[in-house]
């Protein structure tokens, strides 16, 4: 798993990470408070002083949302290709960047999906990760999101997608762009079966991800302080010359503007999602409508990797 502390000094503006401090301590990315690393990790990387929600890895998200040992990652073998032969003059090619990115992040792509249970409820969970290629939406991410919805349809599972993305992956060009249509179509097909889709927007959720599956949830939950929008702050300022007011495009801004249902702190997310799934599943899954943990179906033939993450 990726080193929790790999983001090194100096801190980049707009980087919502945290700083490495040798060994046992970590410094909050917002209030600069020194925090005891283990306690901070146990609090799901939320600063106890200022409430800052630092970015999570896919493993962190699984631990936050799913029941212990219930996560079965699927299709972890999907790997990116270089469909355009993207070789920008004088810059590293996409092929080169893919190699570096895998080495740096220790990951094979910017999303994972799979089965799991959440408070005993069978769910299909997909998670995007800013740690690989800024969580950008390319073919592999698009395919995994679409499969997450199809898994939901096939096994009558609620779908949860945790977004964190800089947008569409430029290096895959129109192949990336079209993933917006593909994932939106998959979300729509899933919705036609009247199963619930809970979308969690985390820091940051931008561009083609905001403009496709991430905003199609039956309920949209945002993490405190997360930057959420279509055009990123830099693009807005460059294009329009407008200086964004403080707090623009935060989760709280989107709540005020009617775009998200609630801003929910990490510690409350699991309980809220469970409650929502039970409320929305009453007519289709009356049996789920209790707090007794349901057993997870097994044996889907295309399981590629199964990992217990704690």
């Amino acid at each position, binding site marked *: 798993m990726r080193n929790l502390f790999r983001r090194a000094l100096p801190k980049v503006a707009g980087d919502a990470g945290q700083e490495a401090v040798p060994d046992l301590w970590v410094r909050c990315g917002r209030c600069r408070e020194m925090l005891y690393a283990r306690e901070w990790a146990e609090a799901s990387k939320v600063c106890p002083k200022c409430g800052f929600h630092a970015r999570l890895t896919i493993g962190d998200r699984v631990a936050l949302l799913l029941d212990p040992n219930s996560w079965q990652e699927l299709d972890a073998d999907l790997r990116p290709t270089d*469909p355009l032969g993207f070789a920008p*003059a*004088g810059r590293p090619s996409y092929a080169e960047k893919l190699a570096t990115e895998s080495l740096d992040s220790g990951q094979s792509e910017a999303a994972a999906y799979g089965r799991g249970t959440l408070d005993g409820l069978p769910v299909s969970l997909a998670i995007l990760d800013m740690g690989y290629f800024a969580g950008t939406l390319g073919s592999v991410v698009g395919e995994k999101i679409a499969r997450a919805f199809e898994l939901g349809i096939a096994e009558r599972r609620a779908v949860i997608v945790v977004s964190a993305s800089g947008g569409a992956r430029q290096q895959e060009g129109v192949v990336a762009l*079209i993933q917006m249509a593909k994932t939106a179509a998959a979300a729509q097909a899933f919705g036609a079966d009247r199963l619930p889709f809970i979308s969690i927007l985390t820091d940051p959720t931008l561009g083609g991800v905001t403009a*496709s599956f991430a905003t199609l949830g039956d309920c949209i939950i945002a993490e405190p302080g997360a930057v959420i929008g279509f*055009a990123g702050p830099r693009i807005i300022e460059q294009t329009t010359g407008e200086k964004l007011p403080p707090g623009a495009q935060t989760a709280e801004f989107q709540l005020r503007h009617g775009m998200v249902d609630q801003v929910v702190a990490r510690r409350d997310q699991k309980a809220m999602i469970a409650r929502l799934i039970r409320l929305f599943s009453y007519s289709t899954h009356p049996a789920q409508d209790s707090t007794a943990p349901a057993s997870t179906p097994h044996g889907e033939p295309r399981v*590629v990797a199964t990992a217990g993450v704690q």
Partner: protein
Amino acid sequence: MSVVLDFERPAAEIRTKLDATEKQYAANPTPELDAQRIDLRRDFANRTQAIYRALSPWQTVQVARHPLRPQTMDYAIGMCTDFVEFHGDRVFGDDRAIVGGPARIDGRPVMLVGQHRGRETRERVERNFGSPHPEGYRKAHRLFELAEKFAMPVVTLMDTPGASPGLGDEERGQGWALAANLATLATLRVPVVCVVIGEGNSGGALAIGVGDRFLMLEHSIFSVASPEAAASIVWKDAKFAPQAADALKLTAPDLLRLKLIDRIVSEPVGGAHADPSAMIATLRSTVAGEIARLETVPADRLVSDRYEKYRRLGSWFESSRPATPVGSV
């Protein structure tokens, strides 16, 4: 108004000579001048054709953005009869960067929706240079639903630098508006024919560009982002737009080869702006043919075919399967 692009200059020079010769000939119709003007005409046509056959991606971008290139309203009037422009999203405003309404193509009622950039400065400002606000996408959404209600095929014309990226657009949910359109177009129970007529950039184009058939005019472009925006991301400098245009594979032939689009609509020699009415006539008959064919498909099949089409698009390695080609349309 005449606009000569850099790379058109060799042809333009012949044109200048030709015009002069024609004038001379009109005043003094000698056999020599007649022969000369016939030669010049042929030279001009050959040179233009040669130039347009060998356009670089960046040159294609220039053609796609040509100020005299026909725009959505030109098609609405030239390609259709009975066009009635519908205004407003019923929620906040009327966005002039997206126009739409019912119209007829070859007598068949359709719902026409397209971005329109405008030509004169005042109009371009009014239309935000073809960059729609969320209101525009919501108007389009309303028209898509109306089309479904009245069983009208949808025809969309893409021509936009991208969705508008202002603070107000963010406040009114640009991303939400785009996503809603993608989702609705995916399951619309009427034929949807999408055409890139100029520049089709990013989610702002795609939000009116999901359908059963996706066409591009020969010299239009379709891209994940404008070359300038992509250059800002990849080179951290918009000046590298020509290089980005090369890398992005945004031309119609490249995208057809990648199986990401269904069909290329030929432009007149010298581009759509050289002969707008021929371009409009070509697109009319092309779209009419596509609609006629799609209308034979039952709605359930139409929707499931459309789903499968988008579902397959993408490219990845998977150990349990052979490597997927890009697009498998």
